[in-house]
């Protein structure tokens, strides 16, 4: 957080690719802008009133040159589009094995929680060199999670999850800012991303408030809210079992197949009749209003932890 510098630090894998494209564009656009300025200036001077210079009108068709300066920019633009699209697709596709962190934004603070349980406010400690995936939601208005040094940004919306991933390439502290106007203290909804060596990160993680992991907290919530009454191993109600579900395809009663991701689990809890599993009837009650965003993320973490568990034997 030193003084003025012209070049924003690059601290993620994406930032380097980003800057290549950015500075290529800067050079290209500068060439065009300077070119236009030079031609305008040269013509203005050469053809100024009173100068004795050949002014016979240009005869012949203007079409060849017009097609040339229509098609050439278009091809260049196509190139930029493709390059940017490839980078964008990469930026939107988290690699497998990423470290999951939950983010809940509210006016005017960031609440983060690591899957191991440790919570942070306005700060995020991360290990170097490992992809990190943020699953984010808002409790109120739209916010936006932005780390300039990583060149990443993603809006955080109420009522749904958005995700963001990055991999830090340098240790240090980097500003985190809210990039979508959210009211009075929008400018103060800032924080820090602290990138540490993996060993240091592991130490940090194990210290601090001894909160249970998100999955453990989620399991507790699963019981206290009565979910195990229908979805547990000894339930008498015919409800889908949750072992081995997360991350896998689910066949729905209307014929569609969806992947059971965070949004699917969230919807199943809040809008249980929206995507009913094939072979089941929509009798699950909604938990709208009974679970906070934090609770939901913990429940999801618990169900995620069951992803590799074998489904219990079929009850008769």
């Amino acid at each position, binding site marked *: 957080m030193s003084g*003025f510098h012209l070049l*924003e630090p690059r601290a993620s894998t994406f930032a380097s*690719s*980003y800057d290549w*494209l*950015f500075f290529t*564009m800067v050079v290209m*656009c500068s060439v*065009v802008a300077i070119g*236009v*300025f030079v*031609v*305008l200036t040269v*013509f*203005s001077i050469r*053809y100024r*009133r009173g100068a004795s210079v*050949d*002014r*016979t*009108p240009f005869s012949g068709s*203007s079409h060849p*040159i*017009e097609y040339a*300066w*229509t098609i050439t*920019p*278009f091809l260049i*633009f*196509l190139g930029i*589009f493709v*390059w*940017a*699209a*490839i980078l*964008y697709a990469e*930026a939107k596709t988290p690699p497998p094995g990423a470290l999951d962190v939950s983010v809940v934004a509210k006016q005017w603070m960031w609440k983060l929680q690591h899957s191991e349980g440790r919570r942070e406010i306005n700060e995020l400690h991360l290990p170097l060199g490992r992809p990190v995936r943020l699953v984010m939601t808002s409790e*109120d*208005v*739209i916010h*936006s999670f*932005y780390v300039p040094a990583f*060149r990443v*940004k993603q809006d955080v*919306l*109420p*009522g*749904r999850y*958005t995700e963001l991933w990055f991999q830090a390439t340098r240790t240090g502290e980097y*500003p985190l*800012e809210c*990039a*979508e*106007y*959210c*009211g*009075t203290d*929008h*400018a*103060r909804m800032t924080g820090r991303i602290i990138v540490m060596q993996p060993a240091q990160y592991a130490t940090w993680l194990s210290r601090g408030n001894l909160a249970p992991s998100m999955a453990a907290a989620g399991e507790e919530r699963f019981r206290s809210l009565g979910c195990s009454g229908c979805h547990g191993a000894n339930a008498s109600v015919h409800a889908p079992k949750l072992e081995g579900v997360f991350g896998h395809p689910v066949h729905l009663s209307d014929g569609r197949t969806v992947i059971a991701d965070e949004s699917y689990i969230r919807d199943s809890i809040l809008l249980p009749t929206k995507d009913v599993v094939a072979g089941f009837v929509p009798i699950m009650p909604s938990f709208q209003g009974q679970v906070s965003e934090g609770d939901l993320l913990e429940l999801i973490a618990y169900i995620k932890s069951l992803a590799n568990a074998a489904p219990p034997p079929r009850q008769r």
Partner: protein
Amino acid sequence: MAEADRPPSYLAAGYTIRSWLTTHDHKRIGILFAIAITAFFFIGGAAATMIRIELATPAGDFVTDDTYNKLFTIHGVVMVWFFLIPSIPTTLGNFLIPMMIGARDLAFPRLNLASWYLYVLGGAFTVATLIAGGVDTGWTFYTPYSSIYSNSHVMLAVVGVFVVGFSSIFTGLNFIVTIHTMRAPGMTWFRLPLFVWATYATSLVMVLATPVLAMTLSLIGIERLLGIGVFDPALGGDPLLFQHLFWFYSHPAVYIMILPAMGVASEIITCFARNRVFGYRFMASAILAIAVIGFLVWGHHMFVSGQSVYAGFVFSFLSFVVAVPSAIKVFNWTATLYRGDISFEAPMLYALGFVGLFTIGGLTGLFLAATALDVHLRDTYFVIAHFHYIMVGGSVMAYLGGIHFWWPKITGRLYHEGIARFAAILMFCGFNLTFFPQYLLGYEGMIRRYHEYPPQFQLLNVLSSAGASILALSYLMPLAYLAWSLWRGAPATANPWQAQGLEWQTASPPPTHNFEAAPLVTHAPYAYR
């Protein structure tokens, strides 16, 4: 025709306020609009002044955070809806379109007057919003902040914009019908000056896009007032739906702001280079292409909003496509200078400044159209710099160029050329000092709508605020010397610039009914050779 026989000019046809407030004359209505939009320009400018004073230091110490939020909101609302969108169409468009096509007035003069009254009514609501304490949602009114959480005067603001939207629709409707049905004999489509083409395309956008804004704002009002709504996630609604609807209007709206400016530039450059415009048909086609494709690119405001990646690809591609006709126009303006006979009166300085600044603004738009690049730059000062280069460096400079160019025709007076050239150059320099540093700030990660910022950004902010003071001066100067010319300016002849175009065939200022006899058009426009 002898002086005594000449019909009185439109300015002499009644001197009472009532004769002005009940006029049906498109020229008088143009002047009514000019007065109104100038007033709002300075209101929006006052907000900008306070913003730049606050941003000269990193701490938020000039105004409170809530006040700052209200300042940038009112700056955006006033400048977009009460200055930029009406500016050229309702002032120069109203005054010139009938004359350029050889007509006596617009098709619906009373609708034209109604359009002005709607503007004033909308403006009254906006001033009421200010007096009541302001609105703090940003000119973009994103939900759910605007529909549920904001405690400011959203309803008043939304009603003001709704009403002025209808002013826009009526003006656009009037132009479309006039240009289609009232051209003089011989004035075929491809003999129209490019200013008419530009106004026509702008009118198409006004008429088709503005109703979407009207309904979208109504929905915010309904959600706020009645607590029911399609944007509230707690009720099953979707805040992203608001963004799609809002930007479906607001992106074409930026073409409403730039197309007329492009039309003005073509008129001025051809006159002061004494040359035909290079590639007339490509220029006219480019204008239409920008208007049409402009309806298909709105999602480039939403690359990080939660929109799907595939939608992002489509909108990005189309955004690059819409840049092509703009590039064509810049090249054609430049080529119009080739083998011309160029002089550098104030209108020409403004027009050349327009081309240069529009080029820079347009090129930076390419950065934002590139999906991956927009991720870092969106909601930073890079975006602010981009759109100010186009809207202020582009539209405002072209508007001022047009005002100077047609000033003799409108008022019958000449302004002082020396001061005008100085002001134009001062504006160009002040503008660049204000907004170029903001590109750097944006890349550095300075977020927009922040009243305080980290200290490392101060140097560039100070440069920007210094530039803003120069820019402010350069706007006050024309206000002063143009007003002065109304009393002391030298009388103008019918065609002081020796320009082509039907409007120059009649007196300065023109008689109420424009032409003594309907003109007959026999050749292409810009017959400078």
